[in-house]
């Protein structure tokens, strides 16, 4: 019965308003660029050029996007269950340990066996790190927002310890593991050279990008084509109705968190197995948090997430190009944009709705006269 804000057609709610919010976030970002004395349009152009203007730029853009698809899907699955998983960062970090432990510890296995095992280990560790907060929420009522934040910090210390005391080869100065030689994913460049004899620009793009596409499809299928997905969405949309329907909230919370953590864990596949080929300190670098922006922007739908992840891939790749071309603009400008996107597409989601509603009604009324 709450119709004080007025009904709007579906395409306005689902299409126009998010676009307006995004535009406002980008305009605000432009203003920040303006404040530091640079031309925002020029900056935008450099970013687009830097990511879409060359094959290399595309490679980097898609590589970043791959990370963000995983972390964005992780946030989205939890969102659908009514949970806010802020712990993607820690889950992905722990997943790196899984990937590296299998990749290094079982490196006597041939790669067709080792690689899937390493991928599964990454997912399992990420899932495990989300499973604990899930269980604590489901069984003990501990607020998942707080526990996942805490688990990010615990992971940061724990993985730091593990790398320092267990993974770092004796005598090595850099805080990182030795190279994973058996279970790595070939970069697009190597594949092109090895199998097709084609030389393409160097970039970290690798086959994980297909894994991201598969993950996006799998999440869509799970949520909208399975009974489990139905239960996840029902719980998130209306917990009382879910209980009435015989859906057990504790079970669904734990399952949704585990899936969410597993998805976040896939980020380690791209980063550790695909690019770095070793476990290194702080390798997640905020991708877990970008996932929140991506999920909000993509409205928690896999298609939206793919698009949003590509936009953020563009911003990250373009942003580093920009900081080369214009040292006055720091790379961290991307973080500012991220923050503004989360602010306008998340917290201020409905800020422009009343104005639009008024506009529609006045237009409607004139039309009727």
């Amino acid at each position, binding site marked *: 019965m709450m119709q004080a804000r007025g009904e709007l057609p579906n395409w306005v709610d689902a299409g126009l308003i998010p676009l307006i919010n995004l535009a406002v976030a980008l305009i605000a970002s432009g203003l920040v660029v303006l404040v530091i004395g640079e031309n925002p349009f020029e900056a935008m152009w450099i970013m687009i050029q830097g990511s879409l203007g060359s094959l290399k730029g595309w490679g980097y853009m898609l590589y970043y996007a791959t990370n963000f698809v995983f972390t964005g899907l992780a946030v989205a699955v939890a969102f659908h269950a009514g949970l806010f998983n802020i712990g993607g960062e820690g889950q992905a970090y722990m997943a790196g340990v899984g990937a590296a432990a299998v990749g290094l510890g079982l490196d006597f296995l041939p790669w067709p066996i080792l690689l899937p095992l390493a991928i599964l280990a990454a997912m399992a560790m990420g899932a495990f790190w989300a499973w604990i907060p899930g269980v604590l929420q489901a069984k003990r009522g501990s607020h998942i927002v707080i526990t996942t934040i805490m688990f990010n910090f615990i992971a940061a210390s724990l993985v730091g310890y593990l790398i320092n005391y267990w993974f770092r080869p004796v005598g090595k100065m850099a805080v990182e593991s030795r190279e994973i030689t058996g279970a790595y994913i070939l970069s697009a460049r190597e594949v092109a050279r090895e199998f097709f004899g084609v030389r393409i620009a160097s970039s970290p793009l690798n086959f994980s990008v297909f894994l991201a596409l598969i993950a996006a499809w799998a999440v869509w299928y799970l949520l909208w084509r399975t009974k489990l997905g139905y239960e996840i969405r029902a719980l998130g949309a209306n917990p009382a109705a879910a209980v009435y329907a015989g859906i057990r909230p504790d079970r669904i919370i734990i399952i949704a968190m585990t899936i969410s953590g597993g998805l976040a864990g896939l980020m380690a596949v791209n980063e550790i197995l695909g690019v770095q080929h070793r476990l290194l300190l702080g390798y997640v670098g905020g991708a877990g948090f970008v996932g929140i922006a991506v999920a909000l922007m993509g409205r928690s739908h896999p298609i939206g997430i793919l698009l949003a992840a590509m936009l953020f891939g563009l911003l990250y790749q373009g942003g580093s190009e920009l900081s080369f071309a214009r040292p006055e603009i720091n790379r961290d400008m991307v973080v500012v*944009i991220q923050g503004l996107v989360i602010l306008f597409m998340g917290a201020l989601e409905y800020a422009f709705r009343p104005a639009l509603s008024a506009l529609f009604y006045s237009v409607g009324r004139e039309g009727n006269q």
Partner: protein
Amino acid sequence: MNLYIELLASTIRMSVPLILACIAGLWSERAGIVDIGLEGKMLIAAFIAASASAVLGSAWIGLFCAILASLSFALVHGYAAINQRGNQVVSGVAINMLAAGLAVVLGNEWFREGGRTPALPPEGRFLPLHFPALDELPVIGPLVRVFLEHSVLAYAAFALVPLTAWALARTRFGLRLRAVGENPHAVDTAGISVAALRYRAVIIAGVLCGVAGAYISTSLSSSFVRDMTAGGGFMALAALIFANWRAWPALGACLLFGFLQAVGNFAQGASIGGFQIPVQFINMLPYVLTVVLLAGFIGKSAPPKASGIPYVKDR
């Protein structure tokens, strides 16, 4: 002996920003506004304090500007949470990112040192007070100094605890604020503006985070470096939960977490009593303790009932 005195002094120093941020969170959350953005507000304040102090040459002007900066972020959060009824956690996450990004981008533009601010001269900092009389005092002199020789901001932080406890329990504002965090409908129908109350709480949180940030960059340190708050805002949040949203227990929790931070810092240099605990385990202890508490294994955590829920007049 010296080591323990140093540890004690360090504990107090590390506790100060925690106390300020924790009490900031307490005011906000007791009014029903969840504040994940303590970290961001502290960070932007630390940056602005160091910048303004470096340019204008006064720690006090730095503090003033830091409060303004933190306050503006707090008001954004307030607008999102109170007027727009947005998701308060999302808004807090946005504020943290915005602060982290802006501090580096603006710092890079202003000082061209990759986000760092110039080193501050003594008059640009809040230095510990010095009591020469204590030097004369034998035996207990050094011990008393540990407690007294801190900057004015530290004094403010410790004074804040009894003030907050008293204001919440005994004043009209405190009563209404506690009520609005439990049941805003009751406050609204009593003819009191829910929004105004919550804005006041958010403003208090903003001011206190501003002081906390200024303390970090102009008292604990002499310049701003990126990610300077290093999760302190979240540790304050943990302390707030640990203290069950009460002022005096908050002091205890902050001192405990401050002590663990101090031990962590020391352990990087020396091993204690020949017993080596990896520093990472000391660092994670506050968070582990908080999770254990949240899980209900020690005591029961009871947040204000309306916290995080946007207020909507229903029909």
